[in-house]
C-alpha cells in the first residue's frame, strides 16, 4: 500500500502547487488579498483583447536600407573617381540594389576597375561592355541589410515605446519574411500619438545648402536635371508659419552630420521664445560638424528631418557639438520630436498593415461572457457525469477540476497569456477532457459485463485505453502545433491553452483518476460492485 500512499502524495502535491500558482493569485486579486510579489509576478496574464489596448502591425520597408547603401557607395565611387581623375558620363542607382556607370573611357578602363574594386565592396561588378558597368548588390549583403534593418527598427520602436511609459508593452518580429513588427500597448488610449511616435522615421540630417530657397522645384534644375551629387529637398521658408507655401532647397546629397552622430535632444526655445529642440552631437560628430561649419561660414545649413527642411539658418560661426532645430512647432510637437531624436532614427520607413483598438469596457465584456460560458459548460458536464456515472462520475469531476487547475497553473508558470479564444480553449478543454474519462469508464463497464472482478476491470480499463488516449492526444497536439505556427496574438493564446490542456488531461485522466479508484477500493477487502 505504500505505493498507493506515494501516488496520493504526488497527486495532492501537484494540486497544491498548481493551485498556488494558477488559481490563488486570481482569487487574491479578485478579493484584494495581499500576497507576496514573487507570486504576483507569476499571475496569469491577460491578453490585449481582454485587458484593452492597442495592437499594431507594421511592415519595415527594408528596401530603404538597401537604397541607402546603394546611394552611399555610388557617392563614394563618384568622389573617388573624381579624385583619381577618371571621368565618367554618368553614375546612377536605377533601383535599390544596382549602381549603373556609363561612359567609362576605354583608356582608363583598368584605372576605373581598380577604383571600383576598392570602393564598392558590397557589390558584384559586371564585365563592362562599351564603357557601361552594372554593379549588383551581393545577395548575402542584401539579406544582412534587410535583417539588420528589421532588428534596428524593432529596437528603435522599443526605445520609443519605453519612453512613452507604457506598462508591459510587447514588441515582436513576425510575418513570413520576418519584416513585420507587432506592437502591443496594453491600456493605451491615445492611439494617434502612439502611432505617430512609433512611425516617425526621425532621420535628422544637416546638409549644406547650395542654392535656394526657390519657389518651385524646377527653378533649381540645371539642364532639367538635378545636378550630380545634389538633392532637392522641400521645406518651409525660414521663420515662416506652418501654412506658408513650400519652398525648395538644393543641398549636398551626402549629409554633413546625421542622426547617428546625435547624443542627446531636449526641448528648448528659440530666440523668439518659440518651442524648439536643442541637440548635442557626439565628439566624433562634433569634429565632423566643426570642420564643415568652419569651411562654410556665411552659407546656409539645412536642418532636414525626415526629408523635409525644418529650417535653414545661416552659419555665422564654427559650430561643434551643440545645435538647435527651430521652426513652427507646437509644444507637443517638440516634445515628440525630442523623444524621437533621442530614441534614434529608424533605418527604414514603416507602413501600417493593421491596427486594432480594444476599449477597456469591451475587454471587460469579453471576460464576463467568457467566464459565464466557462461556468455553464462546467456545470453541464458535472451534472451529466454525476447522473450517468454516479459515484464514478465524482471521480471524473475531480479529475476534470484537477485538469483545469493544472491548466491555469501551467499557463501562469510558463507566462502564457489568457486571451478570449484562450477562454474558448479552456471551455473546450473541459468538454473534450472528459472524453478520456468516458473512454476509460465505458471500457470498465465492458470488462465488468464480461464477468471480471471490479479490480481487474478497473486495471484492464485503464491499461487497454492508455494507447488509445496516447494516439488521440498526439493527433490533437499535431494540429495544435500547426495552429500555434499559424496564429498570432489571441490565436496563439488559444493554441497554447489547448496544448497545455491536452497534456494535463493525459495526466489527470490516467494517473489522478486511477489513483482515486485505488483509494476508494483500498479500504474494502471484497469488492463486488462498482458505482459506474
Amino acid at each position, binding site marked *: 500500500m505504500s505505493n498507493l500512499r506515494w501516488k496520493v502524495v504526488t497527486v495532492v502535491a501537484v494540486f497544491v502547487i498548481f493551485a498556488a500558482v494558477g488559481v490563488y493569485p486570481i482569487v487574491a486579486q479578485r478579493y484584494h488579498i495581499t500576497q507576496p510579489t514573487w507570486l504576483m509576478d507569476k499571475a496569469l496574464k491577460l491578453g490585449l483583447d481582454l485587458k484593452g489596448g492597442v495592437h499594431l502591425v507594421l511592415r519595415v520597408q527594408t528596401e530603404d536600407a538597401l537604397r541607402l547603401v546603394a546611394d552611399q557607395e555610388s557617392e563614394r565611387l563618384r568622389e573617388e573617381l573624381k579624385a583619381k581623375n577618371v571621368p565618367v558620363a554618368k553614375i546612377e542607382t536605377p533601383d535599390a540594389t544596382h549602381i549603373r556607370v556609363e561612359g567609362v573611357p576605354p583608356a582608363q578602363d583598368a584605372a576605373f576597375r581598380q577604383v571600383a574594386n576598392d570602393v564598392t565592396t558590397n557589390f558584384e561588378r559586371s564585365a563592362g561592355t562599351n564603357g557601361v558597368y552594372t554593379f549588383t548588390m551581393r545577395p548575402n549583403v542584401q539579406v544582412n541589410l534587410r535583417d539588420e534593418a528589421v532588428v534596428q527598427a524593432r529596437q528603435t520602436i522599443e526605445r520609443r515605446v519605453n519612453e512613452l511609459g507604457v506598462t508591459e508593452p510587447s514588441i515582436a518580429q513576425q*510575418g513570413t519574411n520576418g519584416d513585420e513588427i507587432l506592437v502591443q500597448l496594453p491600456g493605451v488610449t491615445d*492611439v494617434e500619438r502612439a502611432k505617430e511616435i512609433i*512611425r516617425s522615421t526621425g532621420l535628422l540630417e544637416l546638409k549644406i545648402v547650395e542654392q535656394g530657397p526657390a519657389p518651385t522645384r524646377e527653378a533649381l534644375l540645371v539642364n532639367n536635371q538635378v545636378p550630380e551629387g545634389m538633392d532637392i529637398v522641400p521645406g518651409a521658408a525660414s521663420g515662416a508659419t506652418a501654412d506658408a507655401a513650400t519652398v525648395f532647397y538644393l543641398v549636398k546629397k551626402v549629409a554633413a552630420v546625421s542622426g547617428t552622430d546625435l547624443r542627446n535632444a531636449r526641448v528648448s526655445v528659440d530666440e523668439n521664445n518659440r518651442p524648439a529642440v536643442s541637440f548635442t552631437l557626439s565628439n566624433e560628430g562634433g569634429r565632423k560638424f566643426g570642420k564643415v561649419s568652419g569651411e562654410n561660414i556665411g552659407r546656409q545649413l539645412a536642418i532636414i528631418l525626415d526629408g523635409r527642411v525644418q529650417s535653414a539658418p545661416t552659419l555665422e560661426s564654427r559650430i561643434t557639438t551643440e545645435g538647435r532645430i527651430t521652426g513652427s512647432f507646437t509644444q507637443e510637437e517638440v516634445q515628440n520630436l525630442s523623444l524621437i531624436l533621442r530614441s534614434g532614427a529608424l533605418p527604414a520607413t514603416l507602413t*501600417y*498593415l*493593421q*491596427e*486594432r*483598438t*480594444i*476599449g477597456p*469596457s*469591451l475587454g471587460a*465584456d*469579453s471576460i464576463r*461572457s*467568457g467566464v*459565464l*460560458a466557462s461556468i*455553464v*459548460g462546467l456545470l*453541464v458536464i458535472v451534472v451529466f457525469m454525476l*447522473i*450517468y456515472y454516479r459515484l464514478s462520475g465524482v471521480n471524473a469531476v475531480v479529475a476534470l477540476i484537477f485538469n483545469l487547475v493544472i491548466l491555469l497553473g501551467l499557463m501562469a508558470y510558463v507566462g502564457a497569456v489568457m486571451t*478570449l*479564444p484562450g*477562454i*474558448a480553449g479552456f*471551455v*473546450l478543454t473541459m*468538454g*473534450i477532457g472528459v*472524453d478520456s474519462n*468516458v*473512454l476509460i469508464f*465505458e471500457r470498465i463497464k*465492458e470488462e465488468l459485463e*464480461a464477468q471480471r472482478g471490479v479490480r481487474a476491470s478497473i486495471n484492464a480499463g485503464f*491499461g*487497454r485505453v*492508455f*494507447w*488509445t488516449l496516447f*494516439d*488521440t492526444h498526439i*493527433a*490533437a*497536439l*499535431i*494540429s*495544435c*502545433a*500547426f*495552429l500555434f505556427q*499559424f*496564429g498570432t496574438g*489571441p*490565436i496563439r493564446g*488559444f493554441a497554447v491553452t*489547448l496544448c497545455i490542456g491536452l497534456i494535463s488531461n493525459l495526466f489527470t485522466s490516467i494517473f489522478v483518476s486511477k489513483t482515486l479508484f485505488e483509494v476508494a477500493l483500498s479500504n474494502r477487502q471484497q469488492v463486488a460492485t462498482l458505482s459506474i
Partner: protein
Amino acid sequence: MHIFKHTNIDFLRWRWHAIALSWVVILAGVFVIATKGLPKAVEFAGGTVVIEQFDHEVTEDQVRQALDRNYPGGGHDAVVQAFGDPSTHQVMIRVPAVGSESGASLGVEAQKVEDALSKAGLAAKRQGAEIVGPSVGRELTSKGIWATVLSLIGILFYLAFRFQFSFGVGAVVATIHDLLITLAFLAFFRYDMSLNVIAAILTMTGFSTNDTIVIFDRIRENLRSMRRDSMNHIINVSVNQTLGRTIITSGTALLTALALFFFGGEVLHGFAFTMVVGIITGTYSSVFIAAAIVSLWRGSAPTRAAAHAPAVAAPTSQQPQRKQKPQRKARAS
C-alpha cells in the same frame, strides 16, 4: 446507466447512403460558395470596423441613414450590426474602405465614419476598432490553408505509423469531409471567415480525428482477436462497441461548444458555431465515413494477411509487442 447497450447496427450497409448525403451537402456548399462567396471578416478582406457606443438607444437604420447622408460614397457597402448586450447601445460598423498603408492614415476611414455619425447628431464613443490593410489578408489566407494542409499530412503520417496506411487515409478523408461540411455550413449561415473561425477549423481537424482514432483502435484490437472474421464484420462490431462512448463524448463536447455559442459573447459566435458544426459532423464521419473508407481502400478480404500483428503470433499470446497494447484474452462483448 447505458444509452446504447449491445447495439448491432450494420453501419457499413449504409455507407453509400452516408457518402451520398455528404456529397449533397458538400456540393450545395460549393454551389453557395461559388455563387455568393464565403463572407470574409475584416482580417482577411481588409477594411475598417469600429464599435461605437451611443449614450441612448440608436437603431441600425438610424446609423445606416447617417452613413448614407454623410459618409463619402454613401453607406450601401457598410455593414451595421447591434453589438453585445442591447442595454449597452453598442453598434458595430464595418466599411470596406481603409486608409493608405504608407503614412499614418490607415485609420482615416474610422474617423470619417465617426464624423458622419456626429453630423447626424448621433454622438458616439469609440469602444474598439479593427483596421486592416489589404496586404494582410492575402498572407493570412495562404498561411491558414498551409497550416490546415500540413496538420492533415502530420496526422496522416502519424496514423500510418501507429496503425496502417489505410487507417491514415480513412482518418484524413474523414477530416477533409468534416472540413468541407463545416465550410458548407459556414456558407449557408453566412458566417464571416475570421481568424477565430480558422482557429476553430484547425482545432476541429485535431478533434474530429479523435473519435476516428478510438474506433480505429478498437478495429486494430479486434483484428487480433477476431482473425477469422471479414474486415467488414470487424469494422461493424468495432463501431458498435465504441458507439456509446462516441455519442457520450461528442455529447459533452457539444454541450460545452453550445455553452460558448450561447454565453461566450459576440466575438466568439463564429468560433462556437464552427465548433458545434465540426463536432456534429466529426461524430457522423467517424461512424459512417472513416471506417467505410478503410474498408473500401482495403477491400473486404479476410483479415489474416492484413492484420497488423505478425501472422505467427497466436491470438492469446502474452508476448509483449512494441508500441502495442497487451493482447486481449477474451472478447469484450
